């Protein structure tokens, strides 16, 4: 059981030794924290009720791609670039008993990103990498809040041309991503707050991963052998 909460003043008496404006602001911020938590809760429920079937279908299709030796390529700008890194590391190094799967973030290599930005322009930073790495069994995941980032739209188009599974994340009403024919699954977080959008996208990414793991473990697809397992195979039988 969580212990009963104590008042701010009893927890942080030093905060009450300053100006008289501080206690009022602290209370305002405390209330605001609760309101924002309630907002994210309702937003998750809205996404659950609207997108559960789509998430499950997408996860199953991702599992089919992984079973066919496909890889996941994730990309985004700014905070979404770090979310793409998170998604890649979640698949690649999930920890516990979960199955590691090949995944790359296209937003992590400063040499590649600055070379493409400087020589051609920021609009191609992901599309060029998709062209270099992507093959038809792969999965492209583009993370955006506005849904309007030109470099994501171009990368998803390129991925679609190559026969990759294309997954998009957006906020608001989906922006230009909602008009793109090249996206197989588009998950829109129906909010106008960039922060709440990113939070619910994090949840959707984690849920896709979990459902994909479930689909892989319930299918007969052979797991890719880990180096340790390979080492146990006698040389002559390879």
């Amino acid at each position: 059981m969580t212990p009963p909460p104590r008042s701010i003043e009893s927890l942080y008496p030093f905060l009450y030794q300053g100006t008289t404006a501080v206690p009022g602001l602290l209370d305002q911020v405390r209330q605001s924290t609760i309101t924002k938590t309630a907002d994210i809760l309702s937003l998750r429920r809205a996404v659950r009720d609207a997108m559960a079937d789509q998430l499950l279908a997408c996860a199953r299709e991702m599992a089919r791609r992984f079973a066919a030796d496909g890889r996941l390529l994730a990309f985004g700008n700014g905070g979404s670039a770090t979310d793409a890194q998170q998604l890649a590391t979640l698949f690649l190094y999930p920890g516990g008993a979960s199955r590691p799967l090949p995944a790359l973030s296209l937003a992590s290599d400063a040499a590649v990103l600055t070379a493409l930005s400087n020589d051609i322009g920021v609009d191609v930073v992901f599309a060029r990498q998709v062209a270099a790495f992507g093959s038809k069994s792969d999965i492209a995941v583009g993370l955006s809040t506005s849904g309007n980032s030109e470099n994501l739209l171009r990368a998803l188009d390129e991925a679609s041309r190559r026969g990759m599974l294309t997954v998009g994340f957006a906020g608001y009403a989906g922006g230009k991503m909602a008009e793109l024919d090249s996206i197989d699954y588009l998950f829109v977080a129906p909010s106008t707050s960039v922060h709440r959008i990113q939070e619910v996208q994090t949840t959707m990414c984690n849920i896709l991963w979990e459902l994909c793991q479930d689909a892989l473990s319930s299918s007969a697809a052979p797991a890719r052998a880990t180096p340790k397992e390979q080492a146990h195979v006698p040389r002559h039988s390879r």
Partner: protein
Amino acid sequence: MMTQKEPASLAAGTMTAAHPAAQARVSPQVGGVFDRREQPLHDFALQAAAVAAACYEIAVRFHEGGKLVVFGTGGPSADAQHVAVEFVHPVIVGKRALPAISLTSDIATVTGIAARNGMAAIFSHQLRYLATSADIALGIDTDGNSSSVLSGLLTARELGMLTIALVGGDGGAIAACPAVGHLLITRSADPRIVRELQVTAYHMLWELVHVFLEQPGALEPEADA
């Protein structure tokens, strides 16, 4: 003097009554995965006072010229970068850009320190050379037992920095560490759920620090305090 009243749960606040996935005709497999995320969020809301106190002290440090230094290993290393860009390049037009750096982006330094001095030193070394006593240290960890994050927070405290820990699980060794000035625990045994709550928590830190910064009178120490 204001009266303090914390909610027993979010249901007492602005939220509508709970309606589990079953009522919305969502498949039990997917609905269950969503519903598992609700209680940890309710638990986090109980720490609203701690969030407010941390925001206030962060605002004071920024007001006095300090910078925010963020660090974490594994998934949280990307969160550290996310927090830094949040402060440096605000998504909301008109909000002040604030100085923040992550200690997880310079892979040459991180792997160099790890190879020669061990993983535990990757942040503490950087803090000694990149941070000052005026600064704020924010360590993010999934289970609270990362030796690198713990050691970073200890060094930060030695340097006189404000120390904030954002940890999951049961808080681990970091929650028990006296060098931590402000502790925010996102309680869940599932590291994915921990991370989701941590994203919410650091977004709130960014959003709410600005409430204090926009009232600069509140950040000046009183002569007779």
